[in-house]
């Protein structure tokens, strides 16, 4: 163990490099994770946006946090998928029979999700700037936004890891993405919750995505984040911890 522990970081970095290559070599992943949210942003701003009353003077400003979360939700199915393939094709067995830190293989996938999401989110923000997105946020606020997005990514990624590790088929591994896709749609990401029927509104206002969206929106518009921040941190922190523990358990048992 002593020898493998000292190599944990190096091994994880090698694993990260490996699966980032997978991401960059698969057009499909890039399109779904980066281009789809951009297309959605174009659609919402230039087609639907004129009819949506948000109270903000600039709909792109209102929309961007939700689009960023949609991009993250779109990407996690690929984490499950890549994990599942590594399990199924015996690649994990090969790694685990080698003198390397055992959890490095799993962390490699998780960090790949984090790094590739940060890249695609950066690109989406650039496109939003071209579309008229403006923010009065300072460096600290932007760091807060990056931190919130990173935590949200990790939360969804660890959930996706459970699915990828325990799935019996490729379809099963990717299926986790579907219910998660809906969470940003039924939140305050695209429209204010006030116009929703009460049952939907209660759900929308009390699910994790809304607090994350509101936190990011407040940070970007340089407003006080208030209790939304603690709610968002509580939701994501709690879920990510549970998902991490559960995924590690499945990982150890499966291998």
């Amino acid at each position, binding site marked *: 163990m002593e020898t493998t522990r000292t190599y944990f970081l190096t091994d994880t970095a*090698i694993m990260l490099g*490996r699966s980032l290559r997978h991401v960059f*070599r698969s057009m499909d992943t890039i399109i779904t994770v980066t281009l789809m949210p951009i297309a959605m942003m174009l659609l919402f701003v230039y087609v639907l946006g004129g009819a949506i009353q948000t109270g903000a003077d600039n709909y792109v400003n209102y929309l961007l946090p939700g689009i960023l979360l949609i991009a993250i939700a779109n990407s996690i199915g690929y984490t499950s998928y890549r994990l599942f393939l590594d399990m199924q094709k*015996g690649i994990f067995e090969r790694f685990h*029979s080698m003198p390397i830190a055992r959890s490095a293989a799993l962390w490699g996938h998780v960090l790949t999700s984090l790094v590739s999401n940060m890249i695609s989110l950066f690109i989406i923000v650039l496109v939003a700037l071209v579309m008229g997105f403006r923010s009065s946020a300072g460096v600290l606020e932007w760091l807060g936004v990056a931190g919130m997005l990173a935590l949200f990514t990790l939360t969804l990624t660890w959930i996706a890891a459970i699915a990828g590790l325990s799935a019996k088929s490729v379809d099963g591994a990717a299926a986790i993405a579907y219910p998660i896709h809906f969470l940003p749609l039924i939140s305050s990401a695209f429209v204010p919750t006030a116009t929703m029927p009460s049952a939907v509104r209660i759900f929308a206002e009390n699910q994790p995505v809304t607090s994350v969206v509101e936190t990011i929106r407040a940070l970007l518009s340089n407003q006080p984040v208030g209790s939304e921040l603690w709610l968002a941190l509580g939701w994501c922190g709690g879920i990510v911890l549970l998902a991490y523990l559960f995924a590690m358990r499945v990982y150890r048992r499966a291998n």
Partner: protein
Amino acid sequence: MQKLAIKVEGLQKSFKGLSVLKGVDLEVEKGSIFALLGTNGSGKTTIVKILTTLLRPDSGKAIVGGFDVNQNPGQVRQAISLTGQFAAVDEMLTGRENLILIARLRHLQNPRRIADDLLNRFGLNEAAGRLASTYSGGMRRRLDIAMSLVGNAQLVFLDEPTTGLDPEARIEVWKIIKELAAGGTTVFLTTQYLEEAEQLADRIAILDKGKIIVSGTLAELKKMFPAATVEYIEKQPSLEEIFLAIVGANQEQ
């Protein structure tokens, strides 16, 4: 004791109440080729997984490369390499990248040179820059075995290395295994094919329903069976014979 690369005593393993290994004993001498022969579901892969530290036995003892698989799995992993039942190559990487990946994970100096040497040795030079997903089954298996040889493990496990390969690729893999053993590496191999064991192995053990029922050298095994006898075997007709018989019968009518 030190002459042995593997020593297994009373190995037992069950999955959800189903007993797969029921007390397996075996010994593999250093530098030899050992073949574990058995049908599908006889427990071959389970033994390989225990010996390569992927699974923990329920009871029994296994010493691999001088270390106990339960107590010192880390040391065992230093000594071994595994080529699993399915070619575990990364299809989204090129042949060369696959080899470099393993060399880096083994923390070796000069991963590039190691990769180039192995590509040469396994005749994969021309395909080195292509994604492994474009490789044929035989090439994939060669790359797979080459990846296991990165770092020159003293003990190599090959779980059904030729299953699913065409005859030509199979002979290629046999050649590689013979070369390995000639270089002093201990090879532990599982197979369903009698011919493969006969071709390669110094010692053969036959696993059936979770127990080793016989083991020894090929010559010893042959001695254990009665001298050649004449047997009458009921032979099922082939489709061709059926066809000819029907056509022939029609013509006679």
